């Protein structure tokens, strides 16, 4: 059984990359990459009570998930989900640890509820009404590749359509000094088992040990290496250029996930 799927929709949000069309133009070399702080939109699909409770990580994940589902023309509630993040909500984590170090140890119930690694997946389900399978992963710097392998294994084993959402946000100090993620970056792929008119490309993954792909543009390469979810950029780059061939993505301990891209003309 091969680990393959069809990409039907893509979402991207990161520093200087406000959405997939903008990222696509940059990755195709049609516009220059101009790094700028990531701007996270308020999650309009959440009910107001929930919207007020969400932090950066939820805004980021929901934005890219919605973009990918929308571009695929898929009903969000119909999609199974794989969320993958190297760390969850850094600001929320800082606030909880600071409160627990203070006298009284009074912590906010909302912050505690939001501290679970699956917070973004929970809010996605509440926002869209999705009741299907959903899982949430972490593999430190390899979290994107781990999410991709999980998503492709799920499609290989069970078929259907799913959303892969990979996202990371930055920590404030003092955690930032220990985990210096500079800004927020997220990406999502709407994947299907079967080819459809919406299919952009077929992707097939395997594990390997080839050198991992780097990006020619120095600023994009810095983005790739500094935010774990941006390890997806070599794959996004091939998808943007509709270029057949392998994208070599960093996985665990110097191993690679090799993703063969075959555009659907």
């Amino acid at each position, binding site marked *: *059984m091969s680990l393959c799927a069809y990409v039907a929709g893509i979402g991207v949000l990161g520093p200087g990359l406000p959405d997939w069309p903008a990222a696509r133009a940059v990755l195709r070399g049609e516009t220059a990459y101009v790094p700028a702080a990531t701007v996270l939109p308020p999650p309009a699909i959440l009910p107001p009570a929930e919207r007020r409770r969400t932090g950066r990580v939820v805004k980021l994940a929901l934005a890219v998930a919605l973009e990918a589902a929308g571009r695929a023309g898929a009903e969000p*509630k119909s999609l199974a989900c794989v969320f993958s993040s190297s760390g969850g909500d850094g600001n929320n984590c800082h606030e909880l640890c600071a409160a627990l*170090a203070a006298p009284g140890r009074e912590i906010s119930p909302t912050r505690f509820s939001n501290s679970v690694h699956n917070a973004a997946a929970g809010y996605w*389900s509440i926002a869209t009404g999705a009741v299907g399978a959903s*899982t949430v992963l972490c*593999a430190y710097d390899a979290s994107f590749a*781990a999410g991709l392998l999980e998503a492709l294994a799920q499609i290989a*084993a069970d078929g259907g359509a799913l959303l892969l959402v990979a996202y990371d946000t930055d920590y404030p100090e003092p955690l930032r000094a220990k985990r210096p993620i500079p800004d927020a970056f997220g990406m999502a792929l709407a994947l299907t088992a079967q080819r459809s008119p919406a299919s952009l490309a077929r992707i097939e993954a395997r594990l390997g040990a080839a050198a991992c792909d780097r990006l020619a543009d120095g600023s994009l390469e810095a983005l790739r290496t500094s935010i774990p979810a941006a390890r997806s950029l070599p794959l996004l780059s091939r998808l943007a250029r509709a270029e057949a061939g392998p994208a070599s993505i960093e996985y665990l301990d110097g191993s690679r996930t090799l993703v063969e891209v075959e555009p659907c003309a």
Partner: protein
Amino acid sequence: MKPVLLKHFTAVSCIGRGLAQILEALQQQRSGLAPCRFETVDLHTHVGEVPGVDAVRIPAALRAYDCRNNRLAELGLSQDGFADAVRAAAAAYGPRRVGVFIGTSTAGILETEIAYRRRVAGGPLPDDFQYAAAHNTFSVADFVRRRLDLCGPAVVVSCACASSAKVFASARRMLEAGLIDAALVGGVDSLCLTTLYGFHSLQLCSPGPCRPFDVARDGISIGEAAAFAWLERCPTSLDGGAVVLLGIGESCDAHHMSAPHPQGLGARLAMQAALAAAALPPEAVDYINLHGTGTPSNDRAESLAVTALFGGTTPCSSTKGATGHTLGAAGALEAVISALALQHGFMPGGVPATRVDPELGAGYLKDNRRTPPNRVLSNSFGFGGTNCSLLFGRAA
């Protein structure tokens, strides 16, 4: 789905180190909960603390990974010859063909909590604080794979209290897709201030030992545990008594971050999906190990879901009155308890549940039943409205 064999398994919790002690505690319906004396916690609550975790030593080569969560993992791996069985099996398959899937909600966050306390006047964290090896959610899977020299795919599943039930789903998909030939799955969650003060802030902690399904239940007791299983594709012929994972169901509530769907919609969908995956009707289930946390709303929602699907006669109980709610480890721990029930031919009664809530319609077991179950369903539900049900069976 294609059935998956649980070839080896083990666990550590407040009711015992290893299978023999855990089995004995279950057979005696003994609880491991005690008033909270953990760390500097000043809450009026009971916890299921594993004794002796502080005395566990992490091998020098992996010193960076030293934290309570990984010590608990180390303690779990060293029970019942589990680590040796994994090494032998991994050598046969090749370490690249073995996947590692660990569920946790806490990872080593206790280390970060303590590091924040050690800061001077809002300054930096201490130099010896290890973000990647202790704090990060992946740290426990990274520790386990390095400890056992496994180099296939590895990941942490972190879906709150359903985490280590869902590792079985991830492993099963990767086995079926052919990327791996065997999987080490498990759950490791350790006591920390975030969960104790966090559940307290939500007013979800019982002051006494938790009483799932009791008429006077008033919240959870937080526990800690490490539980592991070694999974392989099912061979064509099985030894009698072998424990097999027959079905897995996953769902979301799409309702609320920290409260269950009032009718237990997501819970019912997960149980239905597990039955469908196994192509079995509800009558095929002999015993249900409930999520049964002991909060008024959780138990009510789960009871509604169970009775909607099974009626009110299928025997069910929660073992969290014995072990506490081990959060990210609960799915794997209760998978091990389900496997013990299948192998040793009994249905564990609830602990203590002296007065079962008459408003809950499910067929709650107060006492152990000596009827050997052939199939056991285990439920795990978590914050974010994430649900997972595992259906285990015993080979004839």
